[in-house]
């Protein structure tokens, strides 16, 4: 039961970036199309899961004083791995994501999970935590990206959804659209949570 809970919390009360307001830069930057969102999310999940596993395995060896530096080295190693894998097998995606692949290394979600969770828990829980939070992040990115792609181009995953008369609203693809869409989504999430707490739903 406990293990399942570690996995599902990434989708419910710790859903990044809405509940765990971390990792905003990739969230805003790459969500111009649903396929970018899913690609970025899965790349982050990969790094997060493996860094959690290693941090958890090495948690009794790493000296407390230099732990942050050690975590950064571990995370950076997996980021380099992802970079090389993407370059080899998904080159168009790699080009679209640009410097944001390398910037996974400074995504605060990953360092945050290493520090707050993996350094204190066993390998099974840490793996599930990494997978859960990572897939939750992927889900949020894909959702946000789908909204922006739908309004900005009238498509989702490149498939035309809107009818003939739809005029693409380019604002949502540009930077301001990213900030405003995420802000409004965050507002809606808070609003529904407050309704739930009052017992109205």
């Amino acid at each position, binding site marked *: 039961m406990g293990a399942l809970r570690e996995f599902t919390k990434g989708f419910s009360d710790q859903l990044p970036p809405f509940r765990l*307001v*971390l*990792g*905003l*830069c990739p969230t*805003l*930057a790459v969500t111009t199309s649903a396929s970018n969102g899913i690609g970025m999310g899965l790349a982050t999940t990969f790094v997060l899961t493996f860094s959690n596993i290693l941090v958890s395995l090495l948690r009794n060896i790493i000296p407390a004083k230099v732990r*942050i*530096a050690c975590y*950064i*080295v571990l995370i*950076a*190693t997996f*980021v*380099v791995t992802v*970079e*090389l894998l993407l370059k080899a097998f998904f080159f168009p995606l790699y080009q679209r994501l*640009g*410097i944001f692949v*390398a*910037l996974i*290394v*400074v*995504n*605060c979600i990953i*360092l945050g999970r290493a520090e707050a969770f993996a350094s204190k828990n066993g390998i099974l829980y840490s793996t599930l935590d990494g997978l859960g939070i990572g897939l939750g992040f992927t889900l949020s990115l894909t959702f946000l990206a789908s909204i922006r792609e739908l309004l900005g181009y009238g498509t989702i995953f490149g498939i035309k959804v809107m009818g003939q008369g739809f005029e693409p609203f380019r604002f949502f693809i*540009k*930077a*301001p*659209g*990213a*900030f*405003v869409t*995420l*802000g*409004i989504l*965050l*507002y809606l999430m*808070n*609003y529904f949570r*407050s309704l739930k707490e009052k017992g109205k739903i």
Partner: protein
Amino acid sequence: MDYIILIINAMLINNILLAQYLGNCPFLGVSKQMDTALGMGGAVIFVITLASLITWSINQWFLIPLKLEYIRTLVFILVIASLVQFIEIFMKKTMETLYRALGIFLPLITTNCAVLGVALLCVKNEYTFNQMLAFSVASAVGYSFALVIFAGIRERYRIAEIPKSLQDTAIGLITAGFMSLAFLGFKGMVH
């Protein structure tokens, strides 16, 4: 003339914060008060310039000749993390007043993706030494500029009535969106 365009471009048109989405976490975190925003802005200008200078040199003189470009990310983040640590110790020993003003912001900067982002952009755009210097200073100044304006707007929110669900991050993001819209207007300056 090329340098003027490069600087205006980095500072206003492609503002790293509002157009390239770099360094958003500290942006939303420390921008509630004007003086913390100013402190953070100063620290960012200082660190970005130094970090770009060092990472660019390492890339040019070590990684490229040794054909080690594929571990660039790893090397850059290590350099930035140790640089920030070093600056902190150095400032504490020699520049008391500056340390008291900027000190607490330094550890935060390691996870500020603007620093690594600017360093990577310098390499990606294949800038020469002078271009790199102009680009990183202009980017950092642009970042601080946006941060200070944003803090000014946010200070006013304290006396405004904002719905409970919209407070803090949500209204911050929407404000950033409209600032970003305003910054898009600078695109007309260069054709």
